[in-house]
């Protein structure tokens, strides 16, 4: 997959996650309060003397704090956005102090459904409070306070991360200078929600799900979660990308007679692999919680359903990027963001990147994407 794009750029090297504990209750959008809670995060680069070079990375549905570098010498894979974070890369760790956290409700170390509920002594499971993107933003603001960051040079996110970045611009206008929104949308379409519903239904239909109390019973709804991921994965790729990667290639048997095996086409094998990998590393309740947060996200709802009125609250500049074959959050969704920003008289830069990779393109090393992103981040650093 590497296009040699990062030949001249380096890695942040070995990184160690840190944990911040918060005892003061966090008031959530659902009306409940959460306390205490922990956020696990990583940082790359150095905070400058004026504390003006801090950048926040907001992760997507299945993301986490480990965005760049390696956890050990033997780590095979780097963080999920290593193509774009590191020395000499668009989010340059030589210039910026980069903060990447696992969101509340996550399953990679921050307090979430797999954590112990202090009231019961058992895992939270399905009782973990439902979260909205704004809850993440408020918890991230507290992490910023803890780190001594009064204002972000940029808040950056792709997909669900882009929604958090936009919410930051509205909730804390004075604390964001630049907002980078990649492959995102102001709200989900009915089709998006439908796909999320299939994913949740797959999980909830697994007998091992046990109404979400699988941890208490020592089970995992691996089949359901795997199936959820398989469906999701199809929506992250484009028809073209799947055609190029798998086509109609067979793993076994023949096109004339079929085969004896369960898995015949290469694409079947790929999806099953993705499903089983994911179900071993992700929590089903977190997946349900995150997809619900996605479904309910609606940037402009509280501003009279008027995105222009919403963005008038922002004080930052925006970079919006979309990808030509992304059908989960299509370029049309990004154009809606851009048009609202233009009408609200906010500074905005927008590009639709030609890419075959579908929604997943935002993670991929694509030359034009990298150059544009780097050019914009240059300005973020100069400010």
């Amino acid at each position, binding site marked *: 997959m590497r296009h040699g794009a990062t030949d001249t750029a380096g890695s942040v090297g070995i990184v160690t996650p840190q944990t911040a504990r918060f005892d003061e209750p966090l008031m959530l959008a659902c009306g409940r309060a959460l306390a205490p809670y922990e956020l696990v995060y990583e940082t790359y680069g150095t905070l400058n003397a004026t504390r003006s070079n801090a950048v926040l990375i907001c992760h997507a549905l299945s993301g986490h704090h480990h965005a760049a570098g390696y956890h050990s010498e033997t780590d095979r894979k780097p963080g999920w956005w290593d193509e774009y974070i590191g020395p000499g890369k668009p989010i340059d760790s030589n210039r910026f102090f980069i903060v990447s956290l696992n969101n509340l409700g996550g399953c990679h170390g921050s307090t979430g459904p797999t954590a112990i509920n202090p009231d019961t002594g058992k895992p939270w499971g399905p009782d973990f409070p439902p979260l909205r993107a704004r809850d993440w933003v408020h918890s991230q603001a507290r992490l910023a306070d803890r780190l001594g960051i009064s204002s972000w040079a940029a808040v950056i996110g792709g997909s669900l991360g882009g929604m958090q970045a936009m919410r930051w611009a509205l909730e804390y206008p004075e604390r964001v200078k630049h907002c980078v929104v990649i492959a995102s949308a102001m709200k989900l379409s009915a089709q998006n929600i439908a796909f999320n519903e299939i994913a949740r239904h797959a999980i909830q239909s697994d007998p091992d799900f046990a109404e979400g109390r699988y941890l208490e019973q020592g089970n995992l709804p691996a089949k359901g979660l795997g199936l959820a991921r398989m469906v999701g994965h199809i929506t992250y790729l484009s028809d073209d990308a799947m055609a190029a990667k798998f086509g109609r290639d067979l793993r076994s048997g023949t096109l004339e007679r079929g085969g004896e095996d369960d898995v015949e086409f290469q694409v079947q094998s790929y999806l099953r692999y993705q499903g089983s990998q994911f179900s071993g590393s992700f929590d089903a309740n977190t997946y349900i919680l995150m997809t619900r947060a996605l479904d309910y996200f609606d940037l402009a709802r509280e501003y009279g359903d008027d995105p222009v009125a919403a963005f008038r609250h922002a004080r930052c500049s925006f970079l919006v990027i979309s990808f030509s074959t992304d059908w989960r959050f299509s370029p049309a969704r990004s154009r809606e963001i851009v048009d609202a920003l233009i*009408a609200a008289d906010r500074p905005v830069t927008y590009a639709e990147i030609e890419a075959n990779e579908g929604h997943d393109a935002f993670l991929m090393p694509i030359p034009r994407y990298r150059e544009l992103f780097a050019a914009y981040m240059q300005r973020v650093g100069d400010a």
Partner: protein
Amino acid sequence: MRLDLTRIQPWIAPGSRVLDLGCGDGEFLHRLQAECQVRGMGLEIDPGQLTAAVSRGLNVVEQNMDEGLGNFPDQSFDTVVMAHALQAVHYPDRVLDEMLRIGREGIVTFPNFGHWRCRLYLGTRGRMPVSKFMPYSWYDTPNIHFCTVDDFEALCRSKGIRILDREMVGNTERRPLLAGAWPNLFAVTAIYRLSR
């Protein structure tokens, strides 16, 4: 910087809002921002040019003018500039209307197809002119709507568009006497400042 852009600069008030349609690598808008403190925004569809303009610190939106400019509110800019793009759009008349809907004033520059060299080329060779200034063959060119100075002014009259100022650029950088006196024959580039 290109001569037509140098001539435009005095027409742009310091601190005003400027939309540059087809801003290219942003050289002009960048200069306006640096020297006139304008609040600028560019539209561009070429990926390389767009990135170059972003590198200059400009706000640029990838948008094809031929698909409309309806996303820009009425009178949201002081000046809308379109330099050397009129001849490349599908509906130059509609773009002119849109420029003066979005901006208080519009500035347009275009190559004058009525220039004597074009006429001579066409008249003597019977072929579409190809020159250093218009280097494309007829079948492979972004320039699909060439016009003359007189054509353009006739369009403005028919649309009720007021010509506030016009400047003609001749063959040389010296005072363009001939281009000023007989622009349709001697202007290489025509520059107009327009309003409703």
